[in-house]
């Protein structure tokens, strides 16, 4: 394969990586944006979504497509329910203190991880894609499902943007983000908004997991990578700025795809990690964020 087909493949893989990243970071960005807390268990919500997709695909008769659709409904509901309980029993009781939340969600991360290991076992589980169409290019074939993931990501991102920017719900969330106390004074049930946002963030990442698991495999340790990558995207994009997160996801995803293809995936991760650390240090509000008051 010549250089240009190689580059084309790298760009295609990069686009898929960018879509995957944007999708998995979306929930984290939403939760951090509105609630100002970092949910370290975000990656485990992703893992649970993937595990549920595998379990549903295995239990639902009627082939991969039926299983996929069922998982698309069941996984976000189940993970959302877990998030609801977490918010009530954990975050609310420590009053959304940023430090305590990080420590508590680290604990939750270990608990979910180990329970998944006990329940599902340590082996990686493959889930087949709902359809197996291959796009034949002159130099190589490319999975049609991967392109479907890209399209689905764009669709979900637009939907979330629409909710935030154009509906009353979005307005309430933005008001809470802007000033919690004034929002309370105007009769907005801040606690309920927090609860809803946390559940929505978890449900979004579960949807992301169901979409992505046919490309990867489900494994009880799979949560760490999306967690760290989501951190990277959310921080580079500016904490809380969804637009920034999406732009950052595209940059990081493309860079990751291309560096992974030409050099090594580990090197790509090292570079991305150091980039985020440096962005955070020299421009703490992120590339597209606005400095907090």
């Amino acid at each position: 394969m010549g250089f240009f087909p190689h580059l084309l493949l790298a760009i295609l893989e990069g686009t898929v990586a960018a879509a995957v990243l944007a999708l998995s970071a979306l929930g984290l960005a939403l939760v951090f944006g509105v609630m100002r807390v970092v949910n370290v268990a975000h990656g485990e919500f992703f893992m649970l979504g993937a595990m549920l997709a595998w379990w549903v695909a295995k239990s639902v008769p009627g082939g991969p497509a039926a299983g996929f659709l069922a998982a698309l409904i069941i996984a976000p509901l189940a993970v959302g329910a877990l998030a609801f309980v977490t918010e009530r029993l954990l975050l609310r009781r420590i009053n959304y203190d940023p430090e305590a939340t990080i420590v508590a969600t680290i604990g939750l991360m270990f608990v979910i991880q180990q329970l998944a290991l006990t329940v599902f076992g340590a082996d990686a589980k493959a889930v087949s894609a709902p359809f197996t169409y291959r796009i034949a290019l002159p130099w190589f074939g490319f999975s049609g499902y991967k392109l479907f993931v890209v399209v689905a990501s764009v669709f979900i991102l637009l939907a979330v943007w629409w909710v935030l920017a154009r509906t009353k719900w979005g307005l309430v969330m933005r008001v809470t983000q802007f000033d919690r106390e004034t929002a309370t004074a105007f009769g907005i049930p801040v606690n309920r908004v927090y609860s809803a946002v946390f559940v929505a963030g978890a449900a979004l990442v579960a949807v992301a997991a169901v979409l992505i698991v046919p490309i990867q495999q489900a494994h009880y340790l799979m949560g760490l990578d999306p967690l760290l990558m989501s951190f990277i995207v959310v921080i580079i994009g500016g904490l809380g700025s969804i637009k920034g997160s999406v732009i950052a996801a595209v940059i990081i995803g493309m860079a990751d795809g291309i560096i992974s293809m030409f050099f090594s995936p580990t090197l790509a991760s090292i570079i991305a990690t150091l980039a985020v650390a440096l962005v955070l240090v020299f421009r703490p509000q992120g590339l597209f964020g606005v400095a907090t008051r």
Partner: protein
Amino acid sequence: MTARILLLHGAVIVALFLAQYVASDYAVLTLTRIMVLAVYALGYNILFGYAGLLSLGHAMFFATGLYAAALGVTRLGMAVPEAFLFAAVCGVIVSFVTGLIVLRASGVAFMIVTLMFSQAAFLTVLYFGDITRGDEGIVIKDDQRVFPVFGHAVNLADLLVRYNIALAFLALAMFLCLAVVRSRIGHVLVAIRENENRTAMLGYDVKRYKLIAFVLSGSFAALAGASYALLFAYAGSTLASIQYSIHPLLWTLLGGAATVLGPVLGTALMFLLVDFASGFTSASLLFVGVVLILLVLFFPKGILGTIRQRWLRWLP
């Protein structure tokens, strides 16, 4: 330093010294490991407990000491004491440079940026797999662990030699820690933890003190890592992973942040708990998670923190 403080900490060391005459071989080995890792927690506590900076990336410094010592002995042909010194120098340099960068961030950003740096360090260890041997790790041969001190050959493969070296190391670290937290530096660090702006207003160079705490803390971690590699003859990438950044946080929280004995107690208790748990489940990290959540919810001051608040106000 008042007499009862010296007496209490001295008594802990004496009790640990006497323990080697009654404990089984297995208990001696476990205690050796606890003592080395307690030094790691002691250092972590300087930064977290006293200066109020929650780092999620201390495994990076632990690994610095670990690999500097292990590579020093196996690749650079150093004797054990040289390798230890080499690791100390590396620890100071790495924590100084990292500190200069990460201390520009604060709050949640500080936690995430330390986590990121540490993850980059972990990936670097894996990336240079032909030198570090990744997961599998570096094993130091027994004949490389014998070194002469004043004409006597000290053999680190010997169980009791190891125990007493670890004990001396812990005692040194503990009294150094006591000296630091009761000194002017320690008081300024607590002031920074309580109110950074006010401390700066009073004319203290807050950045410099934070950097001092960071380097002290990172160097303790590196020295603990070096002792771990030399005493147990092993350096592997798991010891550089995120888990090993979370452990000292957990130990410190459990024993009581901002108490000198807290991290030591926390390390010992957590080891006992995991040891006990491993009898009936392999998922020992489950206990780590549950304990973290319970501590945050119900017991944020930890054991010695609570004791100090209720009864012993003089506890350092």
